[in-house]
């Protein structure tokens, strides 16, 4: 188990320079996520045109894994439809939790950089928090999402 599998260059880069890290005052949807274990908090904002996600951004504070994962999320779901984003969520969940994950690396693109996380079970929640939060935003769940 090499730490460089977890903190790959892509992750370190997205942590240092998170993409789409901004509030979105005119968002159609937003949700808050909270990881009580480490105090990670983030808000995911979504702009929709029908079924299509035309813009997505996030704000908050967290560890390198949660910030990088959220940053990568915004890049990967922007322009996709809601069902496509849901499929990505399912793929990500498999990538993060299953040793025999058969997730399609081509479909995941840069998100595959997070595959090292599954070797660090205590950190899986960090990587998945933004996805649960996006899911809540898309389904208009009012209560903050918690990974506990």
């Amino acid at each position: 188990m090499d730490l460089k599998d977890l903190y790959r260059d892509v992750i370190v880069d997205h942590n240092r320079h998170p993409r789409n890290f901004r509030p979105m005052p005119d968002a159609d949807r937003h949700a808050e996520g909270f990881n009580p274990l480490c105090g990670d908090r983030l808000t995911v904002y979504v702009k929709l045109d029908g079924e299509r996600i035309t813009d997505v951004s996030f704000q908050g504070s967290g560890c390198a894994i949660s910030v990088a994962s959220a940053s990568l999320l915004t890049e990967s779901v922007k322009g996709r439809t809601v069902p496509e984003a849901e499929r990505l969520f399912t793929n990500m969940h498999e990538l993060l939790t299953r040793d025999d994950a058969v997730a399609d690396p081509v479909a995941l693109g840069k998100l595959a950089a997070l595959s090292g996380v599954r070797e660090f079970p205590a950190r899986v929640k960090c990587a998945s928090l933004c996805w649960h939060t996006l899911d809540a935003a898309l389904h208009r769940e009012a209560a903050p999402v918690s990974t506990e």
Partner: protein
Amino acid sequence: MNAAPASATMQARASRPLDVEALRREFPVLSRQVNGRPLCYLDSAASSQRPQFVIDAISHYYETTHANVHRGVHTLSQEATDLFEGARETLRRFINARSTREVIFVRGTTEAINLVAQSYARPRLQPGNEILISWLEHHANIVPWQMVCEQTGAVLKVIPITRSGEVDFEAFESLLSERTRLLALSHVSNALGTIVPVERYIREARRRGIPVLLDGAQAAPHMPVDVQALDCDFYCFSGHKMCGPTGIGVLYGRESLLAAMPPWQGGGDMILAVSFKGTIYNELPYKFEAGTPHIAGAIGLGAAVDYLESIGLERIAAAEQDLLDYATQRLATIPGLTLVGTAPAKAAVVSFTVDGMHPHDLGTILDHEGVAIRTGHHCAMPVMEFFGLPATARASFAFYNTRAEVDRLVDALQVAREMLG
């Protein structure tokens, strides 16, 4: 009979200088490797490790003696009862309680505080009465009081802390009123290490007739505790933070208060006679110990006390103070590192943040170097909120740690800086 007689090593120890390397060999887990490196365990404030002596006391009990206590006339039951009650006497002596009637075995500090909240406070509290705690408290000394306030209409008041992490005594004095019904205070902060000068607080509260509960979870393992000298009404601590087993702890209570309190849980052992017309409760301390207790846990905790006393609580405190001073000085050399909690009197706890690095990432990278620290809110979210931090990294030291391990912590932090900085 003895659970496990003290070894010659332990008996001889008191007269010799502290030999940390020899002590370390008595803790089997300290010889293991983590991620290919020798374990550097700096998380004793969360839970300590235990020596072979304690492990043997528990195994020996299960291998030779186990039966239910306070029940049978057969030999094993009598022996188990003697061991269990012997452990209670050891714990009584450890905290200098007047009587074993004041020493109640519970699952841990959390259960002890809940017991006092529900059995002492709840029947007495009226709407508008106040319970006073401090901003330093662990969740275990916050939530049980919030619950009892919800149940009774009482109000929870919080004594503020200063930027160095000390409880503000003047604010405490101004918060005391004729509505105050209880003061519940940590003896040592788990998140910051602050040693609270509880004597001043107890004196002031007792002068006004306000009972005082101390959360001693972080104090009992690291300094001598004398409940009579402290003059507190309740003192709570956990076995697993002081080289004993998990799932066992002690509630000390002043006998006059315990005697007036209703039982907390009902069941076997806490009764003298049961009929459908009514039940006569057992005497202290059994009134508060419903059901078969954690017999092996109590015996293991008694052994842990014997072990700690063979070293000496004063010597433990001195060794840990040296580690604290050395760690404080070494950590100051790391660029971007900020200590959180800088009270003049501290237990061997260093809570800190490093610019640009989340504590959780530090925890993972340090673990990879074999260094175990705690990261997060340390079950003290209000403390984190006070400092405007989501989390800190916390290294906590016990007498079995070394200066070389402090160096490993510092080296591992440099690795983290190179990886994420």
